């Protein structure tokens, strides 16, 4: 039972980290970035490839994985979002363009087999792989009847520290003020001399870096890296998390992540594995119907 609660916290941390990036983009742009789950997967895939196929050190690979994810944030902005803003497209158009990019990223990894065009990026095709033991530092402790693996335990402080830092940046720095101004009213922000496009690029870079890191942590802790981890594990759950916490609210995303982790593990223990997914989505549905502003959204208008 205690082990189950620990698992809930591990998986909740990953959900939270993923959802913080999701909700950041929604808070600033009012757009759901559906390529976020592909970035999650890309971070994990790049790190795995560097460690296992290229024999690089784990820490170096992590940094490159996060950097590639962040760069993908720029790609999302320049390919999928900025041209649509220029043409004053309805927000629903951005949904389709980010889906298109997600398709491309997943298909590229999926086709990465020895000898193929994407072999430099990934060689395991659609298969699920895990870091072989010994490639990543992973001491294990036993406390009472609990098993603590470093790879899982580390997720918690990493997530909490990063989310605190992000909260501080947004609340108390010049950049954060700029982000909040753009979220509030892009037009007014531009009139006040803010470079709105740059602020949006920055939002996507931060969001995607966090998404990539969440992917790496997921891949390390759960030993499951495949082209589909983003789509299958976090894409829709990320939506559930940001709705539970309140769309656009960062503390809400954090609490929502842990809450979803607890709900899922609770459903697993009480009802068995087959009901796990259904319970999470029923919770999402009920939350929206009963309290659409989420746990932390005081009003729907206010964000971040």
């Amino acid at each position, binding site marked *: 039972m205690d082990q189950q609660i620990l698992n809930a916290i591990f998986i909740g941390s990953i959900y939270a980290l993923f959802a913080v990036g999701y909700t950041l983009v929604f808070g600033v742009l009012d757009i759901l970035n559906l390529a976020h789950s592909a970035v999650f997967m890309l971070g994990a895939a790049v790190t795995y490839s560097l460690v296992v196929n290229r024999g690089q050190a784990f820490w170096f690979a992590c940094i490159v994985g996060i950097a590639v994810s962040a760069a993908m944030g720029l790609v999302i902005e320049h390919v999928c979002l900025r041209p649509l803003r220029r043409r004053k497209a309805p927000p629903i158009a951005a949904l389709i363009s980010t889906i*298109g990019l997600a398709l491309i990223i997943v*298909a590229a990894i999926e*086709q990465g087999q020895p000898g193929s065009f994407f072999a430099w990026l990934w060689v395991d095709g659609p298969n699920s792989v895990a870091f072989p033991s010994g490639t990543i530092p992973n001491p294990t402790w036993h406390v009472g009847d609990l098993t603590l693996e470093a790879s899982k335990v580390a997720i918690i402080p990493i997530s909490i520290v990063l989310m605190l830092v992000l909260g501080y940046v947004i609340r108390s720095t010049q950049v954060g003020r700029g982000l909040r101004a753009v979220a509030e009213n892009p037009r007014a922000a531009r009139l006040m001399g803010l470079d709105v496009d740059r602020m949006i690029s920055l939002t996507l870079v931060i969001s995607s870096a966090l998404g990539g890191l969440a992917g790496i942590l997921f891949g390390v802790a759960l030993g499951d890296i495949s082209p589909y981890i983003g789509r299958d594990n976090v894409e829709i759950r990320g*939506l559930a998390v940001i709705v539970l916490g309140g769309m656009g609210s960062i503390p809400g995303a954090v609490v929502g992540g842990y809450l979803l982790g607890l709900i899922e593990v609770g459903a697993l223990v009480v009802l068995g594995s087959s009901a796990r997914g259904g319970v999470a*989505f029923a919770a*999402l549905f009920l939350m929206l119907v009963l309290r659409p502003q989420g746990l932390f959204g005081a009003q729907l208008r206010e964000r971040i």
Partner: protein
Amino acid sequence: MDFFIQLFTDPVAFWNSHTLLIAQIGINSILASSMFIVLYSGQLSLAAPGFMAVGAYTAVLMDLYWHTPLALNIAAGVVFAGVVGVLVGLPVLRLRGVFLAIATIGFIEALRLGVILNLPITGEGLGLKNPSADPLGGINLVLGCLVVVLFLVWRLTKGRLGAAWAAIRQDELAALSQGIHVARYKMIAFVLSAVLAGFAGALEAHLNFFVDPGDQQYGVTRAVQILTFAVLGGSGHFLGPVVGALVVTSLPWVFEQAQAYINVVTGVFLIAVIVFRPQGIVGRGGLAIIRPWWWPRRNVRAPAPG
């Protein structure tokens, strides 16, 4: 290229060799029309796959247990989907925009993962065998139904109902102040869309020997695909989503050479269309791309929803 060469030089052989594709395009067009109705009334609902599942399972289960005729099965599926539409619509239609989209995603996934995968009667995730399916003979039925559906949707958008929906889409508050019963008209749109989705689901089940409760079929993947039809084709005109369904469904056949990289090509295509024509292929100004310059311009249409 082979795809178009065969289409234009030998339509009969094309029809024979692509029967399943054409049937799928027909089903997807009905689904796209279902999506069109909710978008036309200004609601971003992704609930269609849930109602498809209701329609499909109702029709197949009736056939399996009671051996009732096909028409009755489909009718029952449609009615049941409509009833579920009312039950779901009552609580969720207070939500707007992306909140409505997420609530409907919650509905379809709770239905699929929570109910369909756990009830003994729906096969608990193993799916259902449907021995009385008719993949080849069903195509005429599907295309006939599509024509009827399109005619109905066209008439609806031209009438009082369509005018009320367009008013709600453009400005809900203004519509309310003009005495339009916003909640009622939204509900009508939602339930009609549920009925069409249930109909498409029941028809699709008739084309397949197996009802598969996978994500591609009744999950979010399908919902997003249907949304893609509508947005890519253009949701301001009733033909837009149908064009979108036609284009997106036939993409894998058109780009046959891409083979394994088909999803890369699809992704590039989606981004290109939406970036260069955000209002969709059949967007503002109707069929502006293919209209010859001497053709008289009609009055300007209302802007696309969103």
